[in-house]
């Protein structure tokens, strides 16, 4: 099915308004293919009928499906290994020491835009490995995504070989059991992680996320324009504790967005720390 530039522009604007994600014109092909798929599934023949459905039907119905189909969910365990290694060795260890010295044994981590859960479970595995006195700590890993389908996948905790491509063997054996072609995450890694649906530009929902020591929001902001990025980053800032850290993807920078964070270079990667 062919869509006109105006039609795709309408869809782009609608998605932007709902999610803050900006699909550039060069992604028209991707957008058109998802749109075509959703029209087929919803048995709608004309664009105008489908657009009416998006606008006037109950907001949680087709629009939600369309957003789910265009949000990009590709991820895997231990994605960007050097950054995670830097987190574990250069950030987490001294951070935990300081907390312990202050007799504060609460640790809260948020995997924002967690997709199918690989990042959240990876963080759980890292914590199990780093914490020598695990039983003293009250740990929470919250993991959120706009897409309820990927959250269901994350809750199931069943992954293909591909998701485990960068997983060290020792962890694979320790935290997974094999079921046919798939790998199922064990409860030892699963128990710390709590999933919830959340739109990163939903101000009220985001304001309920508070007092995190670490926030991982990697490879998400690249899909936002500067305006939405600024909004999301200020909400992430609020969600952090003073001296808490925000981790972004390699290609992401806050340079044009805000000067609120202290930039720290740890080994080969940069991270952002909220000032006291």
């Amino acid at each position: 099915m062919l869509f006109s530039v105006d039609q795709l522009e309408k869809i782009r604007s609608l998605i932007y308004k709902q999610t803050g994600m900006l699909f550039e014109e060069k992604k028209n092909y991707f957008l058109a293919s998802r749109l075509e798929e959703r029209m087929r599934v919803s048995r709608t023949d004309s664009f105008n009928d489908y657009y009416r459905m998006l606008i006037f039907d109950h907001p949680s119905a087709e629009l939600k499906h369309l957003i789910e189909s265009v949000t990009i969910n590709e991820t895997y365990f231990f994605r960007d290994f050097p950054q995670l290694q830097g987190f574990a060795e250069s950030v987490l260890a001294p951070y935990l020491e300081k907390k312990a010295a202050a007799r504060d044994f609460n640790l809260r981590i948020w995997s924002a835009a967690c997709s199918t859960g690989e990042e959240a479970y990876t963080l759980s595995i890292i914590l199990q490995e780093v914490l020598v006195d695990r039983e003293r700590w009250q740990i929470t890993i919250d993991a959120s995504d706009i897409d309820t389908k990927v959250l269901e996948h994350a809750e199931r905790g069943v992954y293909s070989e591909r998701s485990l491509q960068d997983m060290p063997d020792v962890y694979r054996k320790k935290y997974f059991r094999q079921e046919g072609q798939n790998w199922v995450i064990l409860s030892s890694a699963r128990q710390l992680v709590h999933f919830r649906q959340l739109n990163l530009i939903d101000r009220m929902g985001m304001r309920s996320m508070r007092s995190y020591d670490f926030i991982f929001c990697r490879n998400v902001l690249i899909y936002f324009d500067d305006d939405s990025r600024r909004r999301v980053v200020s909400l992430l800032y609020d969600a952090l504790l003073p001296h808490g850290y925000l981790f972004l993807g390699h290609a992401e920078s806050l340079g044009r967005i805000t000067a609120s964070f202290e930039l720290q270079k740890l080994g080969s990667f940069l991270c952002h720390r909220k000032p006291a």
Partner: protein
Amino acid sequence: MNTDEKTAQLEELFRLLTSLDATDRRMAAEDLGILADKRAVPLLMHSLLDPVIAVREAALIALKQHVFPETCVRMIELLISESVPLRNAALEVLQAMAAEACPMLLAGPLYSLSADVRKFSLDIIRQAANLSDAERKLIVERVRPLVEDSDLNVAAAAIEVLAQHGDEGIIDSLLARLDGPIWLQCHVIQALAHIPGKRAAESLTRIDGETLAPVAKVFLTEAIESRKRAA
């Protein structure tokens, strides 16, 4: 929301804007931006000096959403502030509401004794969009004398504004500055490349390249080529 409810909400946000908790202050500034009520402007201006960067940034974004003449007046006052962050904030807010600020800037700050204020005013005027013909005409009329400004930055900014809004009537004023420094020569040539009409195009071809600095000569060749392509 009725007037009483809005007033109550504003008062609560004003209270939070002075809270000891920086997150409360940041969120209050953000929410005041959404409400965009002119009563918030003085307090938000005060928050531009908050010790926490995130609060200052939120106040700045909120002020940009208060597109009122009152905001422009107060921000124009800040253009002469001794505090660099305040001055930069005022400039940023005014650029976000350039069309509203434009008449006020043309009425006074454009001829300020401070070269900085003259330059800031021109930078803001340059951002003004969707102007009527009458407004554009007024801009050209008021900005034209600044092409002769003794401060080179101001003169160059004035040329940029004229390139954007001007017509053939300003060509002679521009050509008169071709005897200036290289940087100004380049600005004049670029302006002539943008001004609509045959006369501007012809005036480019009549410039004697040999009298120009080598860099400006390159600009001239490119400008002539670009006008040929456009024709």
